[in-house]
């Protein structure tokens, strides 16, 4: 018996020896490549998507200019949940990469509080680049206190697309108020048509519907106060939002909770649903049908006595780029400035909406749809609906998103939903 204990003890010491012994090897390895600077960007953008392509182009160009002494490594995980898990584990393990992608959410705030991220607002102002961006694109990246630690690489508006043929068939016009919208849905449903196809698998599209009424009533105040524990889901505004969600839910396609993005979108494009909520990043998919005059879009309907204007709706500038405060040296700074100076034109050249002001390149032909939406984006108001998932702490967000599906499908009462959300927030703000 004693022998056995001894051998296990021996093993244990071996294991700890291994851990301690190898802990130091990494640092030595880092010192070795002094002459070539390698920066790691852990990113969550679609592989070979436009951002990916442009950033690779810029990085190659920059590396060439530096005579190969500078290198950037892309570690891409396009799938957002996988990416976030990996990022969180990396940070928990004390290994934050040089550049990361992150939303300005409470988790990001925690990183900021721990002094791990670079103040991007300051950086842009110091280097005279702040006005290069569209104000809303930057404002989206801000925390509620106005500070900003993430740099936008995209710029999007979200709208509801509708099938013109179906609308004409039932004498419907694009709604301008929420009540009209509900009526449109009701008419469609009464005629046996699926009013809206929704991607419930990814959760966020459903969450947008919950945010709509509070945005019209209060701007982003409601969600900010809710997060801070000063407001309750179980308040007049909150309950109205939940009621609206529940009412809208009946007009979603059957089984939307298990419908994925691709299915929801092709249902709409296939004429199997009359409306579909998505942003301008899907211009490519919408183009053909739009040109054939089959589909069009409308922005968020409004309500009587709304605090926000009809030209104010959900705008986002996507997940931002953030920099590790510890490794943000002159060389990285220089690269980032290089990116800012070159990104806009290249990105817009790929038929994308750039967050950096730029003239559209002459050699690229833009579709009417692109130009129309671009024009819309120039004339938006100064408020915009910021998605709720960037405000809420991750636990509350999980709870809300999970139960939202139940609420929308009519399996959960408004009371219970509000209680679940409020409990979770109380837990976080405790």
């Amino acid at each position, binding site marked *: 018996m004693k*022998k056995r204990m001894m*051998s296990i003890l021996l*093993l*244990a010491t*071996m*294991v700890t020896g291994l851990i301690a012994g190898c802990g130091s090897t990494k640092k030595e390895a880092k010192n070795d490549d002094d002459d070539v600077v390698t920066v790691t960007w852990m990113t969550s953008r679609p592989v070979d998507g436009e951002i990916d392509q442009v950033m690779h182009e810029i990085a190659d160009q920059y590396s060439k200019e530096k005579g190969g002494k500078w290198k950037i490594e892309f570690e891409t995980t396009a799938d957002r*949940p996988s990416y*976030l*898990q990996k990022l*969180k*584990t990396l*940070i*928990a393990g004390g290994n934050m990469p040089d550049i990361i992608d992150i939303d300005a959410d409470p*988790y990001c705030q*925690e*990183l900021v509080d*721990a002094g*791990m991220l670079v103040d991007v607002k300051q950086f842009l102002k110091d280097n005279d680049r702040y006005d290069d961006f569209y104000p809303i694109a930057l404002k989206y990246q801000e925390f509620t206190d106005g500070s900003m630690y993430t740099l936008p690489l995209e710029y999007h508006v979200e709208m509801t697309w509708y099938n013109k043929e179906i609308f004409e068939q039932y004498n419907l016009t694009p709604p301008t108020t929420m009540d009209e919208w509900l009526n449109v849905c009701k008419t469609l449903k009464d005629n046996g048509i*699926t009013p809206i*196809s929704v991607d*419930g*698998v990814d959760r966020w599209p459903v969450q947008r519907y919950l945010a709509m009424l509070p945005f019209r009533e209060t701007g982003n105040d409601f969600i900010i106060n809710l997060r801070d524990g000063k407001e309750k889901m179980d308040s007049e505004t909150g309950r109205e939002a939940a009621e609206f969600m529940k009412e809208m839910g009946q007009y979603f*396609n*059957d*089984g*939307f*909770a*298990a*419908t*994925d993005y691709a*299915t929801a979108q092709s*249902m709409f494009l296939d004429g*199997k*649903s009359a409306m579909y909520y998505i942003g301008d990043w899907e211009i490519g998919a919408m183009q053909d049908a739009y040109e054939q005059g089959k589909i069009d879009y409308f922005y968020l309907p409004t309500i009587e006595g709304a605090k926000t204007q009809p030209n104010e709706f959900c705008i986002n500038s996507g997940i931002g780029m953030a920099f590790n405060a510890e490794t943000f040296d002159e060389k990285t700074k220089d690269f980032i400035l290089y990116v800012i100076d070159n990104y806009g034109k290249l990105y817009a050249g790929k038929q994308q909406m750039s967050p950096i002001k730029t003239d559209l390149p002459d050699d690229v032909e833009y579709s009417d749809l692109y130009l129309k939406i671009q024009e819309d984006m120039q004339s938006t108001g100064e408020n915009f609906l910021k998605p709720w998932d960037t405000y809420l702490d*991750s*636990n509350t967000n*999980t709870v809300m998103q*999970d*139960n939202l*599906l*139940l609420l929308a*499908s009519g*399996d*959960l009462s408004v009371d219970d939903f509000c209680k679940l959300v409020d409990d979770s927030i109380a837990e976080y703000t405790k």
Partner: protein
Amino acid sequence: MGVIRNKKAFLAFLLPGLLFYILAVFYPIEESIRLSFMKWGGIGKKQFVGLENYVTMFHDEVFYKAFFNNLIYLVIVVSMQLLIGLFFAILLTYMTKHVTLVKTLYYVPCIITTVAITQLFRSMYSTEPMGLLNQILQKVGLGGMVTSWLAKVSTVLPAVSIPEGWRFTGMYMVIFYAALVSLDPSVYEAAKIDGASEMQILFKIKMPLIKDIILLTLTMCLTGALRGFDIPFLLTSGGPGNASELMSTYMYKKAFSSNQYGYGSTLAVFIIIESILVVYILRKIFTSKEQKEEKRIEKERIRRNRRGNH
């Protein structure tokens, strides 16, 4: 108990495996236990909170929900894999032609990646566009049963359990079939001559003889089902609400989506304790069955010898 007494050789044979095992399995368990007494969001210092996480767990409604869901999941998966597997293994023993081909094809689902399986089942269960399952229901006149299986609270749990059960049924069938055909025919031929029916032979003679295999596969099955994670996680990630939440998906979500590493670890510790219990019970069954089995085989041999002497 073995026969070689060389202790050095013993350690040389044992240690490499043991080391890997301790490093990969035990070190993480130890860490989980430690973390389960802490509050930690992944950034900054860990804060010791004593039993707080455990208290939270026993007041957490979702925890109970996940626990009972897991039991149902376990029952569905294990019974599919064992019963259907066994049933078709038996059918196959009565087949004379193309057995190898059929056996090979039955095994195929095991090879497919989870991502493909989940997407296939998601399409099958859906109503818009009409999934295969619902199409079949309509065709056979059960149109009233058509529903979006993954979106409904009442159907989602079985709906996520079935793919897991389905994918390994073929593997267990192959194992059972193998066990059944390897039985010595003389044992039941004799019974046949004595006038026993096929059913009697099956249940009174063949089944008891492959009891060991059944127990072994039961262990494998339970293991697989308790660890079952990727299909439910990819299909519904526990939703809608928490209707298809399992212990492992809940633990994963708490740790990695909600950043509650401490609480996540507490759930992990609970899963481990639960597992120890299952292993313990199974081992109890195993050893007692084994001993009984030995006695039975002994008797069998004596009986057979007597027959041979006739």
